[in-house]
């Protein structure tokens, strides 16, 4: 097996995260259905968090909760990614709620979830 494929295999979490990011990004960018877009956004963010958490994982170590006063750093995994992802998850859920609320209002108004059609309708109203 070539070297670079080997690397992709070693970094399997990162590989999966990047594939997931690609799919999520594309769904958010090109899918026409608003709900699908929002789900795609959630996938995209989850992929980034997965990547970040994978960067903090160290094989054979435990979660960074100090037990029995054992503060030797070589016993625990990296706590920074966990903290950052925690922040990120809350950001994701906030944005998701906001976008879902927008979707509700748009559906109320236009009776469709297709963003292209909505854009078209509103453009027609203007003309």
């Amino acid at each position, binding site marked *: 097996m070539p070297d*670079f494929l080997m*690397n*992709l295999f*070693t*970094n*399997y*979490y*990162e*590989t999966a995260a*990047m*594939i997931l*990011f*690609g*799919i999520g*990004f*594309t769904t958010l*960018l*090109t899918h026409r259905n608003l709900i699908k877009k929002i789900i795609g956004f959630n996938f995209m963010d989850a992929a980034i968090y997965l990547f970040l958490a*994978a*960067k*903090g*994982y*160290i*094989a054979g*170590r435990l979660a*960074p*909760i*100090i*037990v029995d*006063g054992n*503060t*030797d*750093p*070589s016993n*625990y995994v*990296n*706590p*920074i*990614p966990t*903290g950052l992802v*925690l*922040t990120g998850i*809350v*950001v994701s*859920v*906030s*944005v998701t*709620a*906001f976008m*879902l*609320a*927008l979707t*509700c*209002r748009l559906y109320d108004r236009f009776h469709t979830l297709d*963003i*292209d*059609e909505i*854009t*078209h309708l509103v*453009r027609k109203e203007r003309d």
Partner: protein
Amino acid sequence: MRNKRFFSRLSDFVEYGSFREEEYTLSPSHKANIDTDTPENRWLTSVQHSERSAPVRLMDWLKLRGFEVFNNLYRIASVIICITLIAVLLSVVVFLPPFGSDDNPAVNEVVERYVSKTVEETGATNSVAGMISAYRGFDTLGEAHVLFVAACSVIVLLRVDPSERRRGRLVDPGMTGEDLDFEPNSDLILRKAAKLLVPLSFILGLYVILNGTTSPGGGFSGGALMGAGLILCSVAFGFGRTQRFFGDGMYHLVKTVCLASYALMMAYFIFMGANGFDDHVWLGVPGSIISGGLILPINIAVGLEVACTMYCFYALFRKGGL
């Protein structure tokens, strides 16, 4: 409108970033009508007789098949974007340090300090809690306000004025019943299960919040659990039940007090720390509930804020107000 085909679609797309399908689809009657001089027939005959020049034929063909071509191109383009993006990102992964090894660049003196000094410096045995609420407390303050700003935006979008809501119900209880009125609460299984689960999720949420300094969890996860309990309560027993102890005023009170006290605590902490004063915060006994100095009150404030924000989201989506 019919002859507005491929290029107009393309220009629409480039200019406005979107287009609409119906306008461009061929109607069945148009397809069936073979004898007339439609672009389709012209195209077919011109292919058969080769009497027209290639560009003209191409234009005709595009006029005819514009919608399908564009739709397919759009789909193909999105797949291409996806694959290109993934390829670029995977090429990065190839060069990254191996997963799970203990000598990757992320393991440095910052991590060592966070793990080895958390108990001593912040009083929390959960070093993640110590990190997000004390070491990098400023980020977390921002994060709590992201949730707040999202809640405000949802209120702007979905909140219906209470007086209007009441009026609407008086006029036609059946019509507004779907969204604006209370949930139907006839499901026996749901109610029985909720009787067990609602207290459980409250207790679990409280436990997670209070033990945020010593075990996994903290304000955000515990608050989300309590919020889920509130939502379940309203789903099973109707909004009337939850409204009795958690209305509009209560929500604003909890949210404001929590966020303002959080900001004040952080401001005190940052001000004292930055100016090199002693902040006189008792760190407590590491490992017990009362530990972590300011982390515990911060967790409680954040937890309550998250719980009521989550419930507020749900209530706004269901009936446009608390």
